[in-house]
């Protein structure tokens, strides 16, 4: 359903700060794929997602979703296909608006927003209440609270709900549990899995946690220096261990330890 062909992206080309972020990336996702993405800092994972979402334009290459070429579509027009959750819990919600208002905004993702229709009606309210109660965080009792008053974990749960309340063709998660404490991270990850499985959403999930990368999803890709260097799925992925992944990591020119030293 998603097809990336020969994607290149270099930041600050021609200056001393030149940085190759993506180099000839080819990737095809099938419907219902749940892909975990790993790779050292600066490997190009976030850039890959930003290129798909349209937040960044590639230097070269084509992007197709459902056989539609979206390479030249601006970000706001691609929103129709894509739901996103970021690492920073502040990024995914409008903090001065109510929980239910945030959900109502997300409910209309990629659709026309009428200047004559009230943003929330009782019917929508019921839908929101129901989906909030599924999170199990008692947020359905606080629909008229400002999101600003919520914790990071609660916000990420809501952002996740927002990204999926209208089923996206592609869900992209960029280390969306990295800013949470281990227990909350687990909770949000479990919710993620439940939602993805319930609606069978094609997903691209970046994580630094190798165990999570192995536990979740049916496919795993590893990136290094702007390239996809490893791509396993199905049974091969199931057999993979953390040790295997670490070994792979250490073979890369840009092993995590080096990357950290080089900053």
């Amino acid at each position, binding site marked *: 359903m998603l097809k990336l062909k020969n994607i290149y992206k270099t930041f600050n080309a021609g200056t001393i700060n030149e940085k190759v972020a993506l180099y000839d990336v080819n990737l095809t996702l099938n419907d219902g794929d749940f892909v975990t993405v790993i790779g050292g800092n600066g490997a190009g994972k976030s850039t890959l997602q930003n290129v798909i*979402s349209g*937040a960044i334009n590639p230097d070269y290459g084509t992007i197709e979703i459902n056989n539609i070429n979206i390479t030249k579509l*601006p*970000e*706001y*027009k691609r*929103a*129709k296909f*894509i739901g*996103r959750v970021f690492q920073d819990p502040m*990024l*995914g*919600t*409008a*903090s*001065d*608006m109510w929980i239910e*208002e945030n959900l*109502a*905004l*997300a409910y*209309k*993702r*990629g*659709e026309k*927003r*009428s*200047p*004559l*229709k*009230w*943003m929330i009606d009782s019917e929508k309210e019921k839908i929101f209440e129901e989906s909030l109660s599924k999170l*199990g*965080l*008692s947020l359905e009792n*606080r629909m008229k*609270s*400002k999101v600003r*008053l*919520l*914790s*990071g*974990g*609660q916000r990420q749960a809501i952002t996740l709900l*927002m990204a999926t309340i209208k089923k996206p063709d592609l869900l992209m998660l960029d280390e969306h549990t990295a800013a949470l*404490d281990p*227990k*909350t991270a687990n*909770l949000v990850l479990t919710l993620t899995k439940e939602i993805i499985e319930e609606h069978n959403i094609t997903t691209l999930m970046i994580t630094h946690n190798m165990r999570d990368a192995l536990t979740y999803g049916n496919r795993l890709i590893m990136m290094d220096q702007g390239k996809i260097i490893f791509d396993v799925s199905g049974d091969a992925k199931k057999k993979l261990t953390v040790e295997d992944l670490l070994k792979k990591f250490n073979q890369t020119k840009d092993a995590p330890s080096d990357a950290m030293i080089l900053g």
Partner: protein
Amino acid sequence: MIGSLLGAIGQGFIWGVMVLGIFITYKILNVSDLTVDGSFATGGAVFAVSLLANIDTSICLLLAMIAGGLCGLITGLLHTKCKIPAILAGILTQLGLYSINLRILGDKANVSISQLSTNITFISKITNLTHTRSGMVLGIVVSIICVLILYFLLGTEFGASIRATGNNETMIRALGVNTDNIKLFGIILSNMLIGLSGAMLVQMNKYADVGMGKGAIVYGLASIVIGEVFFRRFQNFGIKLISSIFGCIVFFIIRAIVIRLGLKANDMQLISAVIVVIALAMPIFKENMAMRNIGKKNNWNNYRKNKDVDEIVEDKMTRINVTESGGGEYA
């Protein structure tokens, strides 16, 4: 005394429409638009000359709004298409508008409309009220209409995306909203109201002046700030809109008092600048005070005094929820 008080209230309603415009950009869209001083005068100038050209008063008001909207369009395009920072875009437009406003007024600094019939003279004729009181009636009617329209607009699906653009642009763009267009729309709408306000002031004063918008942005911000002092506890959106107009009325009452105390009307520029500075610096002062009070016994009481009651309840609920859900969220 009553007379000047009523005059001040009337001024407050008329300028209040401009404050609503500033509220849209400054508070809702989170864009500092300084076009105001220019577009206010443009609205007034267009109104005066079209009235002199024997056009119907209500159509003249409409033309003033359109003119204001065009000023906003320029600033908006400079900001969204040319990516010039909003403040600079507004300053540039405002500067250019000074020349344009002079042209509109036929290269004169001011143009009188004292012999012509306007909405205010009409109201005065049918109600037998004085010119000042009729002006107040006009201000009240137009303010109410504007508040109602804005209240409903901002509650719609489209309006919500305007509020969201001011709150978290990245998010709402990722949800499929062309935020550049939203900003453009907001800045245009804002300046339409500002132009309308300028036109009403011309009716009130019976002349248009090229410098009539001078300091308008500071008056507007001061009004918003004063309104917030009175309505701080209210979260309702409609109340916030009303609060801006209320703040503007208080502002003009203060102005009337200041003048009565023997200061000049021009001193108001300094006074309003000081009001805005105090309001903007207040949160920092409060924070510093709070720092000093850390560990002191009555700190909890201060905390309660400084916070909205709702917020305290919300805070408590957050804590309770954490323990209830066992989610382990940190505060």
